[in-house]
C-alpha cells in the first residue's frame, strides 16, 4: 500500500469517530473497535517502516492534497515524510497504543464507567496526534498535531480521580505556554525562509547562509524552549508528576511512555532536519552548556524520585530523569550520543510502558500503589512482578534488556565528546535507580516494612495472612499486555542491532563526529 503512511494517522482518527458515534448506541463496541483500529494502525506502520527501509533514499513521502513541492523554497502543501527515524517512532507510538488498548478493558470500565465512548474517542485521537507528530514534514502542521495530542491528553487526564482536574489545569497552562513558544518560533522561521516544509527550511538556511541571522537564532531559542517545556525537561517538569499520578490507569500507561519521548523526537527532528547540524551545534555558542543543564536535571529528578513513596509518582520522576538522558545524548553532539538518544526513545517507551502497566495492575489488585501496600506481593502475583521487574532492570540498565544498550551508547557518546560531567551523572542516576528498584524488590520479595523490620518470625513466615500470599493474578486482559511489553523490552535488547542499524542509516548523511583516535 503506497499511501500506508497517511493511514497511520487516519485509522485511529476513524476509529475515534466510530467509537464516539457507535458508542452512543452500544458502549460494548468501543473496546473491540479501538483494538481493531490499533491493529490496523500497527500493520500500516510496520508496512511504512519496511517501505522506508527498502526505498533507495530511505524515506517515504506523501503530499496531502497533491500540492506540488517543486518550487523553491519547497512546500506550499503539507507533506508527510517518514524517514527511518520517523517511521521507527511511529511504530513505537502505534505499538504502545495497541498494547495499552488491549490492556484497557478492565481499568476503563472500572474507572470511567459509562464514559467509554468518550474515553476511547480521546484515546484514539491521542494516538493519531502522536503518530502524526512523528510523520509530518511540515513545521506548522507539527504544531497542529502537538495541539491535537495535548488537548486530547488534557481530556484523558481530567477523567481521573478528583485531584486530576487541578493537575490537568496545571498541565494546560504549561502545555499552552510551551506550544505558544513553539508557534512563535515557527512564525519567525516562516518570515525568514518563506516556507514551512522542514527540509525546505534547512535548504533555505544552507543556501542563504543564515547561520548568523539573529532572527533564526531567536526562532531556534523559541522552538527549543517550547519543546523543552513540552517534554517536561527539568525545571519545566512541574506538570508531569501530578498529571500522570492522578490520571486514570490507562491514560498514564499511554501518555507516560509516549508524550515526553515524542517531544524528544521533535527536538532531534528540529536539530537535524530543520535547523541542520551546522546551525544547531556550531553557530550557537550556548549549546555547549546544555549538557550542564542536563546534569542538573538528571540529578534533581533522580533525588526527587528517591523521596517518593508511591510507585506511579516515583515513575513519573524517573521519566523526568530519563528525559534528561535523552536531551543530553543529543547535545553532547556526537554520533554515539545521538544513536543513544534515538535508541533510548524506543527503549524508554518500552520499559516505561512495562512499568506503568505493572503499576496499573498493582493498583487494580491492591487498591493502592503506595510502597506499604507492596509487602510480599511476589507470592500473590508472581507473573505481574516478573514483568514489572524486567521493566525495572531495563531502567537500571542490566543486560540484556534494551535499557542496557541505550545506556551503553549514551555513555560511549559522553566518552567520545569527553563530557565527563554527563557520564558521571549517568552513573549517579544509575545507582539511584538501583536503589529505587531494589527497594521495591525488598518490599515485594522480602516483605520488609518501612522501618526495615520484618513483621513475621522469619523462616518463611512473613507476617502475612494466608489470603495475602495466595496466588491471585491479575485478569488476563491486563496480564498478557504486561508480559507482551516485558518481552518487547527483552527482544528490543537482544535484537538491538537491527534497530541501531536503521538509526545509523538515518544518521549517516549528517556527518556527526565519531571521535575515533586509534585507526
Amino acid at each position, binding site marked *: 500500500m503506497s499511501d500506508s503512511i497517511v493511514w497511520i494517522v487516519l485509522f485511529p482518527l476513524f476509529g475515534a469517530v466510530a467509537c464516539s458515534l457507535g458508542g452512543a448506541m452500544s458502549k460494548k463496541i468501543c473496546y473491540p473497535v479501538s483494538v481493531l483500529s490499533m491493529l490496523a494502525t500497527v500493520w500500516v506502520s510496520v508496512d511504512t517502516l519496511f517501505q522506508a527501509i527498502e526505498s533507495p533514499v530511505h524515506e517515504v513521502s506523501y503530499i496531502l492534497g497533491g500540492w506540488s513541492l517543486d518550487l523553491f523554497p519547497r512546500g506550499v502543501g503539507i507533506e508527510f515524510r517518514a524517514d527511518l527515524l520517523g517511521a521507527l517512532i511511529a511504530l513505537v507510538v502505534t505499538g504502545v497504543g495497541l498494547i495499552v488498548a488491549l490492556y484497557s478493558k478492565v481499568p476503563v470500565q472500572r474507572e470511567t464507567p459509562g464514559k467509554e465512548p468518550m474515553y476511547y474517542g480521546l484515546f484514539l485521537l491521542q494516538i493519531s496526534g502522536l503518530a502524526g507528530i512523528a510523520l509530518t514534514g511540515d513545521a506548522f502542521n507539527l504544531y497542529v498535531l502537538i495541539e491535537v495530542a495535548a488537548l486530547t491528553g488534557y481530556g484523558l487526564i481530567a477523567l481521573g480521580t478528583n485531584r486530576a482536574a487541578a493537575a490537568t489545569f496545571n498541565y494546560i497552562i504549561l502545555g499552552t505556554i510551551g506550544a505558544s513558544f513553539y508557534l512563535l518560533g515557527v512564525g519567525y522561521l516562516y518570515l525568514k525562509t518563506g516556507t514551512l516544509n522542514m527540509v525546505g527550511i534547512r535548504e533555505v538556511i544552507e543556501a542563504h547562509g543564515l547561520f548568523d541571522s539573529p532572527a533564526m537564532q531567536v526562532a531556534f531559542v523559541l522552538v527549543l524552549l517550547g519543546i523543552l517545556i513540552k517534554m517536561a525537561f527539568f525545571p519545566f517538569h512541574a506538570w508531569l508528576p501530578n498529571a500522570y499520578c492522578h490520571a486514570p490507569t490507562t491514560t498514564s500507561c499511554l501518555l507516560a511512555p509516549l508524550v515526553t519521548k515524542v517531544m524528544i523526537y521533535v527536538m532531534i527532528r528540529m536539530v537535524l532536519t530543520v535547523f541542520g547540524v551546522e546551525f544547531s551545534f556550531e553557530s550557537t555558542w550556548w549549546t555547549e552548556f546544555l549538557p550542564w543543564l542536563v546534569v542538573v536535571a538528571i540529578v534533581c529528578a533522580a533525588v526527587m524520585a528517591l523521596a517518593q513513596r508511591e510507585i506511579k509518582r516515583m515513575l513519573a520522576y524517573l521519566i523526568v530523569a530519563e528525559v534528561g538522558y535523552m536531551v543530553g545524548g543529543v547535545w553532547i553532539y556526537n554520533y554515539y550520543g545521538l544513536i543513544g538518544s534515538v535508541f533510548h526513545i524506543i527503549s524508554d517507551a518500552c520499559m516505561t510502558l512495562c512499568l506503568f502497566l505493572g503499576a496499573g495492575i498493582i493498583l487494580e489488585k491492591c487498591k493502592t500503589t503506595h510502597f506499604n501496600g507492596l509487602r510480599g506481593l511476589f507470592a500473590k502475583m508472581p507473573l505481574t512482578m516478573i514483568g514489572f521487574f524486567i521493566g525495572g532492570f531495563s531502567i537500571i540498565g542490566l543486560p540484556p534488556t534494551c535499557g542496557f544498550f541505550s545506556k551503553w551508547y549514551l555513555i560511549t557518546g559522553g566518552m567520545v565528546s569527553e563530557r565527563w560531567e554527563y557520564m558521571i551523572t549517568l552513573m549517579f542516576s544509575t*545507582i539511584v535507580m538501583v536503589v529505587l528498584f531494589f527497594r521495591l524488590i525488598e518490599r515485594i520479595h522480602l516483605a520488609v516494612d518501612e522501618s526495615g523490620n520484618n513483621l513475621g518470625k*522469619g523462616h518463611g513466615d512473613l507476617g502475612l495472612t494466608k489470603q495475602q500470599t495466595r496466588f491471585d493474578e491479575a485478569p488476563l486482559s491486563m496480564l498478557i499486555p504486561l508480559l507482551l511489553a516485558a518481552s518487547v523490552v527483552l527482544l528490543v535488547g537482544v535484537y538491538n542491532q537491527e534497530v541501531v542499524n536503521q538509526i545509523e542509516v538515518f544518521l549517516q548523511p549528517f556527518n556527526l563526529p565519531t571521535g575515533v583516535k586509534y585507526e
Partner: protein
Amino acid sequence: MNDPVIVEDIRPLIALLAPWAGMIGIIWAGEKRANLREMFTFIAASVQAAVVLSLVPIILSGAVVEFHIWQIFSHVPMLLRVDGPGLLFACVASVLWIATTLYAVGYMRGLHEHAQTRFYSFFALSLSATMGVAFSANLLTIYFFYEMLSVSTFPLVTHMQDKQARTGGRTYLGYLLFTSLCLLLPALSWCYVWLDGGNMTMDFMADVGKVGHFGETTQIVLLFLFTFGFAKAGLMPAHSWLPGAMVAPTPVSALLHAVAVVKVGVFCVYRVYADVFGPEVLAKMGGEEWAMVIASATIIISSLIALSQDNLKRRLAFSTIGQLGYIVLGAAIATDRGQGGAVLHIAMHACGKITLFFCAGAIFVASGKKYVSELRGIGRKMPLTMGAFMIGSLSVIGLPPLGGFISKWYLALGALDRDAMWVVVVLLISSLLNVFYLLPVAVTAFFRTPETEKDSSIKEAPWPCVVPLLLTAFGCFLLFFWSDTLLQMVGLQP
C-alpha cells in the same frame, strides 16, 4: 604463538541451558513434590557436568571450542569459547554443583527451610551464569553473565527474608552493582570506542594486548577500573560484601561464595590480565606492580582479620578473601607460571574451601553451633566431619599431598620468574597465618574437652550432608595426584 584449531560445537550452549531446563522442571514440580524437584536439580547438574567433562579431551588436544549465540553489536558477537582455563573453572563449578546439591538436600531438609523451590531455581540460574562467564569469548559477553550472576544470587543471599538478610543483601548488591555499573561499564565502553577505530571486538584471543596502544596513564586507569569493577573478586577495599553475604544458607555460602561467585570475580580479573592486557603489555605497564601490592595487602590483612573472628563462617569468609588475593596476585605477576598458578588456585582453593564450608554447615545442622569457641570436643562426636575439616584446612594452607600445594608452588615459581622475591615472602607469611587461623578450629574440636554435658547427644549430621564433604575432602587428594591433567589444561605442561 600459533593459533589453536577452532571447533564449532553446541556443547558449551548445552552446559549453559541445562540449568534453565532444570529450573523449569524445579518450578513445575514445586514444594509438593520435593523429591521430584530435587531430581530435576540432579539431572541438570549431571547433564551440565557430563557435557563440560566431555569437552576435556578436545581441549587437551590443543583445540578450542566455539559457539556463536547472537550478535550484540555489529562486530561484537555473544560468543562462547572453551579454552583451558575456562574449562578448568567450568569443570570445578559444575562438578561441585552436584556435590552441593546433595549437601543442600540434607541441609535444607534438616533445617526445614522455607521456599526451597525458589532456592533451587535460583541456584540453577546462577550456575548457568557461572558457565557463561567461564565460556565467554569476549569482554561484553563476560559482562552480561557477570551481571546475570549478581541478580540471580540476590534471592539466595536474602533467603532468610529477615532484617539481617536485608542488610546483607543490600551490601551485596550495593557493592556489586555499584562497581559493575560505575567502574566496569565505562572501562568497557572506553575500550569499545577508542580501540581499532571503534571496531573493537574485545575478543580474548584476537585482541590480546591491543590495550597497549593507549597511553601509559590510560592503561593504568583501565587496569584499575577493571580490577575493582569486578568486585566479586573481593579485592580490598571492595571486599565487605562477602562477609555480609554469609547470612545466606550454608550451601549458598559454600558454592557461591567459595566457588562460583567469588571465583567468577577472580576469573574475570584473570581474563582481563591474561587475555585483554596480555602478559607482555601487563609486564611493562607499571600498573601491575600496584595490583600486586594491593593483592598482597589484601592477603595479609584479611588473614589477620580472620584470626580474630569467632564466627566460623565469617572466619572462612575472610580466609576466602585472602585466597582470592592469591589469584589476583598470580594473574598480576604476568609470567606464564604465575598466571597458570592463579588458574590452578581457582580449582585447588575451591575444593578445599567448599569442604570447610560444608563442615561448618554440617556442624550447624547437627548441633546448631556457629562459633569456633563452642566447638570444644565436637571432633569426638563428629569425627568424619572434623576429619574432613582437617584435610580441607591442610589443603588451603598448602601442604602436600593436597591440591593446595600445587597452586602455591606455581605461584611462587611465577614470582621467582620475575624476580619478585617479596611475593614469595608474602606467600610464606600468609601460609603461616593460614595455619594460625585454620588449625586451631580442628585442634579445639579434637583435643579440648567439651564444657557441658548436653553436648554429648550430638552426633554426625544426616548422611546427605556428610557424604559430599567426604567426597570433596577426597577430591583435595585427587587434585594433587591428577595435577598433570590440570597443568596441561592451563598450558604449563605440553
